[in-house]
Structure formats: C-alpha cells, structure tokens
C-alpha cells in the first residue's frame, strides 16, 4: 500500500510538471503583462518597459521564464502577481478558506440527504417516494447550476424588496467589515451558494446511492442472508448499505476534489470571494501568474483527491489489492 501511494505520487510529478509547463506556455504566450503600462502614456517609454521586462524576465525565452516561475512557486509561495506586484499566496489562501467552508457544508448536507434518500428509494422501489425523488434528482442533474443559483438569488432579492425581510443575503460574504467564520451573518450570506451546491451534489449522490443499493439488494449473498432468516432490518443495514456505501465514498471524494477548484459559476453569481471567483476575476484582468497559481492548486487538488478516492476504495473493498 505504501509503495503504491509512493508510486502514484511519483507518477503525478511529471504529470504536474507537464500540465504546468503547457498551461504556462499557453497562458504567457497569449497575453501581454505590460499591456496596461503600454496603454498609459506616463509609463509608455521604451526604457521603462525594457527595464520592467528585464526585472520580470519577460525578455527571456519560454523555458527560462518557466524555470524562474517554478522557482518562485516553491521559494516564494506561488510568487507575486505581475499586474499588482502583490504576493499571490495571501489572496488565494483566503479564497481557499472561503471555498472550503461552503463546499464542506454543502457536501456534508448533500451526502447525508443523498444517502438517506437513496437508501429509502431503493428499499421502496417504484413507490411514490421513489418516483418523486428519482424525477427530482433527474431534474436537479439536468438543471444548469447557474440557472438554479440565479433563481435563488432573484427569489430572495424579491422577497427583500417586497417585504423587507432579510432571510438570506444574495451576494458577498459579510455585511459589515468582516465577520467570523461561523457567525449568523456569515451563514446568512453563504446559505444560497450552499443550497445551490447541495442540490447539485444531492442529485448525484441520491441517484448513485439508489443504483448501487439496487445492485447489492439483488445479489446472491443478500438472498442467502434473507433465506437463512436474518431480519430485514439487519439485511438492509448490515449487509446492503455497508457495501452500497463503497462507491459513494469514491464518488464523493472525486466530487469534493472537483468542487474545491471551482464552484466557479456559483461563486461568481453570489460574488463570493472563493477559489472560482479568484480565478474568474484574475482571468478577466489577464493576471497571468495568479491564473497559473490557481491552475496549479486545482491540478494538485484533483490529483490528490483521485488518489484519496483510490486509496479509500482499496481500504473499503478488500477484494481490491494495490501492489
């Protein structure tokens, strides 16, 4: 197991290097970090531009620039933005914190609800409950995230405008300067994004849980358990649910990894200063190195959670052996 993990991590290093080099080449080649300075008549002099290009290694060839960037990433915690000359890490770490809060909340709620509904739908297959939730999750799955988010935003804006009641805020993270992570004010702000993400993940989890439950319920050993007289409750919770949970663990690990990188749309709609919002705003201002920092963090997260998913799978299902 340890060698397996070590090998996976070692294998992901060249993948990361290749991903970062390609993105670096692509992103730096197609945008000009000095464009703003060129546009400003006060700074648009060949001397200044040349000096700056030299300081930031913009006059070097691509591999050398990449090498300097790579050094910055390791030595100076992702380096600094070419656009603002600010260090990137403080900004992005705050963003990570915000995204983490929302994604964690949404995932926990979605998992609990999704697993419960999935189990119940499978036990009472083709009941009204099953049909209702199967169609709901189908709808939740087909619904574009941004539409759901916008409808929630519009609904709660209108509630405020009509009745002057503030149930949930529809944008931002705090109403004052700052509020602590778990204050009521913060929760009122993040409620709508959390609901949005919950609905999407819930649809996925309940569909998945129902399908795997049905798979397991129809397997031979469950029939054996029933035949030898194990009470139905025991059969379901002892034999079926425990095994049906295995794939869900993998799926949720992958989903979690994907969401950490970007609930891009949700965060943009609710102007919530998380990872996705960080990415979009930096992309819109052509802030090359910040975009690169984001790309790297997301790539690492995805690889990491893929690994976690595989390890968990092997841990939960003893038939799977890694060596």
């Amino acid at each position, binding site marked *: 197991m340890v060698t397996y993990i070590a090998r996976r991590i070692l294998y992901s290093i060249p*993948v*990361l290097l*290749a*991903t970062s080099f*390609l*993105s670096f080449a*692509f*992103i730096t080649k*197609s*945008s000009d970090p000095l464009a703003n300075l060129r546009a400003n008549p006060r700074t648009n002099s060949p001397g200044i531009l040349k000096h700056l290009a030299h300081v930031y290694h913009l006059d070097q060839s691509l591999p050398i620039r990449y090498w300097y960037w790579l050094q910055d990433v390791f030595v100076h915690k992702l380096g600094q933005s070419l656009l603002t000359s600010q260090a990137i890490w403080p900004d992005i770490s705050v963003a990570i914190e915000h995204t983490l809060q929302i994604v964690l909340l949404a995932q926990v709620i979605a998992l609990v609800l999704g697993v419960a509904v999935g189990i119940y739908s499978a036990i009472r297959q083709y009941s009204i409950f099953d049909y209702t939730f*199967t169609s709901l999750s*189908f*709808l939740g799955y*087909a*619904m*574009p995230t*941004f*539409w759901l988010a*916008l*409808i929630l*935003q*519009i609904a709660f*804006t*209108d509630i405020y*405008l009509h009745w002057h009641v503030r149930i949930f805020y529809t944008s931002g993270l705090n109403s004052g300067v700052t509020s602590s992570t778990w204050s009521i004010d913060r929760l009122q702000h993040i409620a709508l994004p959390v609901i949005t993400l919950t609905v999407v993940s819930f649809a996925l989890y309940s*569909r*998945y849980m*129902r*399908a795997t439950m*049905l*798979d397991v319920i129809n397997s031979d050993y469950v029939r054996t358990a029933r035949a030898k007289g194990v009470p139905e409750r025991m059969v379901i919770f002892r034999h079926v649910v425990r095994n049906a949970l295995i794939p869900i663990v993998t799926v949720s690990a992958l989903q979690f990894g*994907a969401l950490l*990188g*970007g609930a*891009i*749309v949700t965060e*943009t*709609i609710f102007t919530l200063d998380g990872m996705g919002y960080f*990415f*979009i705003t930096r*992309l*819109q201002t052509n802030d090359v190195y910040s*975009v690169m920092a*984001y*790309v790297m963090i*997301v*790539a690492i997260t*995805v*690889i990491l959670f893929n690994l976690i998913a595989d390890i968990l799978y092997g841990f939960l299902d003893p038939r799977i052996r890694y060596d």
Partner: protein
Amino acid sequence: MTEPSTPLQVEPPPQIIDGRPIAVDVAVSAAAEGMDLTARSQWSYARRRFLRHRLAMIGLVGLIIVFGAGALANVVAPYTFDQIDLTNVLHSPTTAGHHYFGTDEIGRDYLSRTIYGIRTSEQVGLTVAVVSTFFGLFIGAIAGYYRGWVDNVIMRVTDLILTLPVLVVLLTVAALLGRSSSVWTIVAILAAFFWTPIARIVRGVFLSLREKEYVEAAKAVGAGDLRIMFRHMLPNTLGPIIVNGTLAVADAIIIEAFLSFLGFGIADPTPSLGKLVFGGQSYPQDWWLTVLPGLVLVLIVVCVNFVGDGLRDALDPQQRRVRA
C-alpha cells in the same frame, strides 16, 4: 442458400444523423425460400426497442419541437432578435403584441430572442457533437488498431486534460482567444476538448476487437486496414459512440451557456440561451428574463438525456438497466 445457424445479417453502412442511427430497413425476407420468416438485423431490433421506449419518444418529440423552432427561427419568431421598442421596456409576459415571454430592458421581444437563442445553442450543440464524435472515432480507431506511439500520445494527452476541470481549461482558452468570439470559435474550442472521451471509448473497444477471430479472418482474406477498421470493427462500436454523441449535445449546450454566462462566450448581439439567462441577473424583479430561457435550456437537456437513455437501452441490450 442460407444456413439456418447463421443469422441473416445485411449490415447497411449505418448513418448517423443528429447522433441518431438511421437504420435503413434491412429486414431480409426469406419468403423466397418458401418460408414466411423475416430475419431482422441488429439495427431493426434496436430501432424497435427505441421506438417503444416511452421516455425516449417523449424526449425525441420535445427535441424536434424545440430544435425545429430554433432552426426555423426566422419563420416562427414573431419579431427579430434585435428589434428595439423603447416604448415597451421590461414588460412582463403578455398576449398583447405576442410578447409571450415579455420584453427585455430595451424592449426586444423575449420570445423571439429565446427562439434565436435556441438556434445558436442548437448549432453549437449539434456541430460540436458531430465534429467531436467523428474526430474521436477516427483517432480512437487508429490508436486502438495500430497501438504504438499514436496510442501513447493520445492517452497522455487525455491524462493531461483530466488533471484539470474541463471548465477551467475551456475558460482559459476562451479568455485568451479574445472576449468576443463567433459561434464557430466556440464550436472549435468545445470540439477540441469533447473528442477525448469518445476517442478513449473507441480505443478501448478496438483494443479488444482487434484480437477477435473475424478480424483475423478478414486479414487472412487480404482486407486492407481501413476496410477492417471501418467496415468490420466500427459497426460493433457504434452503440456506445452514438449514446455518447447524443449526450455530448446537451453537454456542449450547457458548457456554451457557462462560457457565455461568464462573459467568454459568443459576442453580441447574437443571443444564446446562456447569455439570455445571464442577462436577467441585473433585473431581479423581472423574473421572466432569467426563468423562461433557463426553462428552455432545462427542457433541452432533459429531452437529450431521455433520448440518450433510450438509445442506450436500445443499442446495448446486454447492459443491465440501472435506471438512476
């Protein structure tokens, strides 16, 4: 003379139109032999199964209506998409003047804009699905059949693409290609990423098929590589490809909507469903601007999924049905 043990199988070159297999009627009558037996091809069985799939039929009818309206936008829409009427701004849905979807902030008829938006989304969805399916099919077939460096390169490229969420890659590319893209730029960007899963599927199937006896037999008779690949092996991979291609229509439409929504999509004034939904964000009290085009979007995606499910059940009967 036909031997009773071999099923009569006249395989027509399967055509794919809109990701739907058009099975030419290939029921070969054995009446000439004096028997009243009809041997049906795989395709005619598949078609029967598909036509009897109730949800798939509902989805198909829904798609024909919505996409038909989009294709005939200049006939169906009561106004043009850019006709401004400043005396009738942000009017809620009404039958007066046929503004069934209301009007937007500069008085353009919203139903017409939605219908033209369907046309844009439809162009994107269908072209991306067709182009990426054919491309993925070709590359995947070559990789699976010849293996070697093509295979290696493709697998590594898809590995790389998999390390990043699709949306991140697409957004970066779209952002760098400029803020105002034409429909075809977006199609090119999407197709450049959509072919990879199809190539992976085809490659996987080809890897196992190339070891089959009939391929060996074809080689022994002296059939060329291309003939073996596209005449003999391809028909056996079409099931998953068609299903995947169908679902790609919905994916492409949704992702185009995402890009448009985030401001990296198709340039004004061409409406697309994603842009229409986004346009409503600034006018929260005028709910119809967001809700109605979004509903159309959901309708398209649901219908495509129904059709995809039906095709899967029809084309791949061995696969156990897990209706999730």
